[in-house]
């Protein structure tokens, strides 16, 4: 345990010291000498960001249900804290018992975005744990990782002992139980790793070798031992109602990004946007029932005292009984000054109706995501909204008293022309016209529209996994094309730095050779790459050069239909054939309908949606 006196010396000097003290309401502090497996769960970003992640609250409460296990939290210290910890020789510790991370049995990372990978290395280093899997002995913690980015685990292959693919509720417990067995028998990492290979959803990179072709693409990935499966299937929980769901959440002292009850309504999304990785990874849709949700909400509000319930899912408005749920929640909790909120909105009047009900009060900003500026391009990406939807939704919103609109777009989508890009300007002006075309006495508030353009990053397991990303120069040219075309003070256009998106794109479709680059970048001082003020492209470029790896090979190369991808050994359910078919349809500008209407044959073999929704 880290001594309080030692910590006091640094905590007095850092901003937001409460990030580092734990002791929040509903945090669970166990006697570590009495548990059999100690699990340190790390979200490799700063506390305020990590604590907003629903998955953390789920796993934390799930694992801590069991007397044999303890789950404690670790985040990356902010820059000021890290500096002082290094200076005072304080190793990274968990928030609950303030125990050194290296004394835990397992250190588990959640991989939410590629740009957190250098932070992972920083966590290992600050903990005094060797970075490379092969350098770690039986005395070091087992290092595991899961979360959405684990679906292309290869860039982290050198650092992580075990990847967990898919929804973690069941497989985490299986893994911990196996660990317990092995520890009781006398711990040997090698035999443990072999023994877990038959658990569905487990991938151990060291048991595979990758052979490359002359041109740098993959020839094959071969298991090195018989026990290692050729194909690793992701885990999926079938019935969400009977599955564990937390009835409590840790309530942070400091304000976090999502400081509220988060109620997960369902998993999966079947709208089939072709750029969206989550939409492919988490199919099919599995809903919780309204009655289960009402029970959970009641427990969560009682146990946290939060004043807000956020209904969270990939596309929350798709919940089949949303209206019923919202009005029941409002009825039960409204009197106690507990509000309901929706994180994302669709461009339809139904969504606005619901919003009207819950946001009786604040009429500030509203966000819509047309994603692409022109109808042609929206068809390419299968974003099933048209200009009319936008016009309707926006007029409706203005009528209801909103006056600030945010529009989200992507730049650099496949087949994009300058005309498509300028559609961003056109839609922004259209929104403005709608506002000012209303008679003066009906206009309310101070109008503004903010359009932001992020740089498109092609992701594994999407129909666009074959395409090339735009070059940095091209991104910038297109961004300026839009920016320079807007000459209205009420319209603002923001765009994201293309350099970050480039590195993200390299890693997102990278293979295990990239481990070297990530390590080199970290050694050069890269960390918090997802934070604009800390991202240093120069250092990343040097890292690529010194490791003699061409980032363009990963980011800016159009792939052949039959190329073997680094992530192809993972079976997510949706077939590669389907993804390719979707890619071809996109090039032809053809839409694919939501498969709740009728199955579109994505390849999921035992899909629970077939015959239920459609």
């Amino acid at each position, binding site marked *: 345990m880290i001594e309080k006196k030692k910590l006091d010396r640094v*905590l007095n000097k850092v901003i937001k*010291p409460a990030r580092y003290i734990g*002791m929040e309401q509903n945090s669970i502090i166990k006697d570590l000498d009495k548990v059999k497996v100690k699990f340190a769960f790390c979200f490799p970003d700063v506390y305020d960001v990590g604590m907003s992640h629903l998955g953390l609250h789920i796993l934390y409460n799930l694992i801590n249900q069991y007397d044999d296990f303890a789950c404690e939290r670790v985040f990356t210290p902010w820059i000021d804290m890290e500096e002082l910890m290094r200076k005072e020789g304080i190793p990274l510790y968990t928030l609950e018992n303030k125990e050194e991370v290296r004394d835990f049995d397992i250190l588990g990372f959640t991989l939410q975005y590629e740009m957190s990978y250098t932070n992972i290395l920083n966590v290992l280093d600050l903990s005094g744990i060797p970075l490379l899997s092969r350098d770690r002995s039986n005395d070091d913690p087992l290092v595991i990782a899961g979360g959405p980015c684990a679906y292309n685990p290869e860039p982290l292959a050198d650092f992580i002992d075990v990847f967990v693919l898919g929804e973690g509720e069941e497989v985490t417990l299986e893994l911990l139980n196996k660990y317990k067995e092995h520890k009781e028998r006398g711990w040997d990492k090698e035999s443990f790793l072999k023994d877990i290979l038959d658990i569905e959803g487990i991938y151990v990179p060291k048991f595979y070798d990758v052979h490359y072709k002359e041109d740098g693409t993959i020839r094959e990935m071969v298991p090195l031992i018989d026990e290692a499966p050729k194909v690793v299937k992701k885990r999926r929980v079938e019935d969400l109602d009977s599955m564990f769901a937390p009835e409590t959440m840790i309530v942070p*002292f400091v*304000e976090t990004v999502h400081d509220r009850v988060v109620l997960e309504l369902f998993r999966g999304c079947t709208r089939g946007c072709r750029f969206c990785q989550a939409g492919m990874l988490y199919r099919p849709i599995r809903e919780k029932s309204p009655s289960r949700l009402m029970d959970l909400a009641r427990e969560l*509000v009682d146990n946290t*005292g939060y004043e807000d319930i956020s209904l969270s899912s990939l596309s929350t408005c798709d919940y089949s009984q949303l209206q019923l749920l919202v009005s029941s929640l409002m009825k039960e909790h409204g009197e106690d000054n507990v509000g309901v909120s929706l994180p994302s909105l669709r461009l339809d009047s139904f969504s606005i109706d619901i919003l009207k009900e819950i946001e009786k009060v604040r009429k500030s900003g509203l966000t819509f995501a047309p994603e692409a500026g022109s109808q042609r391009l929206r068809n390419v990406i299968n974003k099933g909204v048209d200009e009319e939807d936008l016009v309707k939704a926006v007029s409706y919103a203005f009528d209801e008293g909103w006056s600030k609109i945010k529009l989200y777009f992507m730049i650099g989508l496949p087949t994009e022309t300058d005309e498509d890009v300028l559609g961003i300007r056109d839609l922004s002006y259209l929104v403005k016209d709608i506002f000012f075309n209303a008679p003066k006495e009906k206009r309310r508030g101070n109008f503004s529209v903010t359009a932001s353009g992020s740089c498109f990053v092609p992701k594994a397991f999407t129909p666009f996994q074959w395409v090339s990303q735009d070059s940095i120069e091209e991104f910038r040219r297109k961004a300026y094309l839009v920016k320079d075309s807007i000459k209205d003070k009420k319209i603002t256009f923001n765009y994201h730095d293309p350099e970050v998106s480039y590195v993200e794109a390299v890693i997102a479709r990278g293979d295990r050779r990239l481990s070297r680059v990530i390590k080199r970048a970290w050694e050069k001082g890269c960390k918090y790459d997802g934070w604009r003020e800390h991202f240093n492209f120069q250092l990343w470029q040097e890292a690529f050069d010194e490791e003699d790896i061409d980032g363009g090979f990963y980011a800016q190369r159009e792939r052949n239909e039959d190329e073997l991808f680094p992530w192809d050994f993972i079976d997510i359910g949706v077939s590669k054939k389907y993804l390719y078919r979707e890619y071809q349809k996109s090039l032809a500008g053809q839409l694919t309908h939501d498969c709740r209407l009728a199955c579109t044959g994505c390849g999921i073999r035992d899909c629970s949606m077939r015959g239920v929704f459609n």
Partner: protein
Amino acid sequence: MILRVKFNKKNYLKYIGHLDLLRLFQRTFRRAGIPVKYSQGFNPHPKFSIANPLSLGIESEGEYMDIELEDKVDIDDFTQKMNQVLPKDIRILRAIYPKENKSISSELSWALYGVTLEIEEDLSIEDIQERLDNWLARGGIIISRLRKQGKRKVMKEEDIAPLIGGIDVRDKTGSEVTLEVLMRVGEDGNLRPFDFIDALKASDIIKLDKDSVSLIRKALYKEDGDQLYEPI
């Protein structure tokens, strides 16, 4: 209906700032089922206020807040329910329904702080006391701090000697010295403990290691003539 409450804030919880503490109480009221009055309007807020907010990084043995209630609640019941849900290092110590209609902030005028620090020279308790007494007697302890002036903040020099009610050296073990310092709080002058530490350090009266300083507010007082009382 005003309920006046005394509570403490110890150990690591000294690192929770004032706004975080307000949020914590707001949630605790909800969890404990305390019928706190809410403000009207678009963004209803529970009505309660904490007197003389503590600076970040300082522990306390006695803080005060006034809570506006919808209905009268039993005090023991209140204390028990609140302590059940509060983190263990914040405890409700006492509560009363005050007779007078004066806000708690306006009643307080002195705060007693315990200061523990390491000194870098070998001095006896008596030596230290003498040096500090002389320092206070000499007067004219000037600090500069930002003061609001209209919309701007202006750096101003200020003599804090009148804001220090007295310093007692209580203890010394090894190089660690414990002082008790009475400082003014409230509208007629307010001394922030960290300004006091800075002034002490700058004076060079005793050589101290600033990183070793730890502070605890031991009491808040109201003043009646030359006598100080705890408000409840």
